[in-house]
């Protein structure tokens, strides 16, 4: 892809005490693409999301959004610029009905300024827009799912609610932290077209996933992390073919074991 990348990450380093969660990770994100980030447990995937969106303070390194340095800014300022995230452990507002969950992002300064998703931030009745967004993202309006309390919704809907909360802000970049995890196969099957549709709407996505098959279907590029370091970056095919990645996932002895049985 050509042109200036929408997000430039340079030498991202984060140390928790003596543990290097991220060690000089650099990558570019181009407008309109989907970048997958994979890696074994504890390889620093979520730390990447947390540090780009300002939820943790970096030890060193820089993050540029559209050429502007956003390192060290508070999370709400970064979200206000259009870099939004979902949480791996869902964080809905449990005491509110699902559609009221979306009134909050629609009430935010960004939504008021940009109009929010489908212009909802400017309209008087944010409740209605909230229900529309939920319907668009797969809440069945006819069975009153949008009206249910968030605390009564199953995981599949909560994952969608996380995405809807980002969407309501009319984001430029969405960082999805494991939106497929904990979902059944059929639920994932309906999420994949949704992700593709977001890309068609012009939203740039970073997706952290353990469900590699589904991720490789949607991602344009994949980056592999291992022990906080960038192992490699490339298309789904090259990553899948890489010996190094297999080693990172299965350990070096087991790869031979697996290969023998394959």
């Amino acid at each position, binding site marked *: 892809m050509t042109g200036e990348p929408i997000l430039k990450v340079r030498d991202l380093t984060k140390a928790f005490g003596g543990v290097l969660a991220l060690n000089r990770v650099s990558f570019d994100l181009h407008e309109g693409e989907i970048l997958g980030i994979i890696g074994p447990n504890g390889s620093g995937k979520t730390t990447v999301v947390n540090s780009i969106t300002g939820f943790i303070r970096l030890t060193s390194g820089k993050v540029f959004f559209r050429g502007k340095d956003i390192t060290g800014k508070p999370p709400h300022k970064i979200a206000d610029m259009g870099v939004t995230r979902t949480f791996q452990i869902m964080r809905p507002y449990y005491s509110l009905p699902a559609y009221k969950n979306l009134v909050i992002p629609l009430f*935010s300064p960004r939504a008021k300024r940009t109009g929010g998703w489908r212009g909802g931030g400017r309209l008087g009745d944010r409740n209605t827009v909230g229900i529309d967004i939920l319907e668009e993202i797969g809440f069945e309006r006819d069975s009153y799912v949008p009206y249910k309390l968030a605390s009564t919704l199953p995981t599949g809907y909560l994952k969608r609610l996380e995405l809807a909360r980002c969407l309501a802000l009319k984001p430029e970049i969405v960082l999805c932290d494991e939106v497929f995890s904990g979902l059944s196969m059929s639920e994932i099957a309906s999420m994949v077209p949704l992700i593709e549709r977001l890309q068609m709407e012009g939203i740039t996505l970073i997706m952290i996933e353990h469900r590699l098959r589904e991720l490789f279907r949607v991602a344009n590029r994949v980056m592999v992390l291992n022990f906080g370091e960038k192992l490699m970056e490339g298309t789904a095919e090259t990553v899948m073919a890489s010996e190094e990645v297999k080693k990172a996932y299965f350990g070096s002895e087991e790869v031979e074991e697996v290969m023998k049985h394959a």
Partner: protein
Amino acid sequence: MTAEQGRKERIDRGIKVRADSIYALMSWRELSYLALPRLVLIAGLLVIPLVMPSMYWQRVISIVCIYSLLALSFDFLAHYVGLVSLGGAFFVGTGGYIAAILNKSLGLSPLFTIPAATLGGAAICTVLLLPCLPLRGVYFAIVTLMYPLAFARVIEALDIFGGTDGIMGVASFPNQWVEQYFVIAVVLLLLFGLRRLVNLDLGLVFRAVKDNDQAVRASGMSVTYYKAVGVFIASALGCLAGACLVHIYMWSGISQFALDFSILPIAATVIGGGGTLVGPVLGCLLLVPLSELLRDFGTLRIVSYSLILMGFVVIRSEGLMVYGQRKYHQFERWVKV
């Protein structure tokens, strides 16, 4: 009928449809079903001063309203913004002293001192509490508890604002009726106002901050800012209570920083039912007269007082109004199996 012969059926009255905020009113009966409890509350509060036997008890009603404002402030902060405040005394003292000083030194009438003390006091309280707003946990409660203690000592030690004697001779309300109906009207207005507020978009943001501040941050909003707005509203309520109290007693002193103003509203909220807003007002309506009745017992007053509280916590910890609302919206009947 017993459990062998039938089962208890719980029926929703069906007026709330789909969501909490949407009502479908089909008849006068359903309309009155919603309106009656509110009318009873309004009419009840307006009639109370008329049926009180003596001046003394009329004064008690005014004090009930003062405590109601504090309880509303506590309930709003604790259940809608997620900040547990022990700052009733802080708010009352700040509002009270501002009103007293404005009245004595500038000669302003209560008509001006009360609004000025409300807004000015709220601004002062909010600024002083600002440092602990970005933190989660018990810090807010501790700091709100600390300020009134510190202020009382500072006034005592430096002998400012009348020192231990306080500021005497503050102007009173024109007469007892104006005083009573003013505070009652204020309580009613703020009660219904707050109930409206928590269902507005702004109020939803407050509730979201309580539920999940990280998600609010991720939605591009500053949690500290909205907490500050919530604290401003709550401390305005408290300072208003303090200003009224000063004009009722015609005196302002360090006893307005006493912890009673922090603790009794919390007890009233426990009894009345937290999160309902109307519950704390009813709690005050029960607790304040009760503590007046128990005045004859001297220090034993606290014992009986604590026993009642204990009883409520053990037997009906959800509070009267939460229980009442649930029973009102659903009814139960036995049916044959």
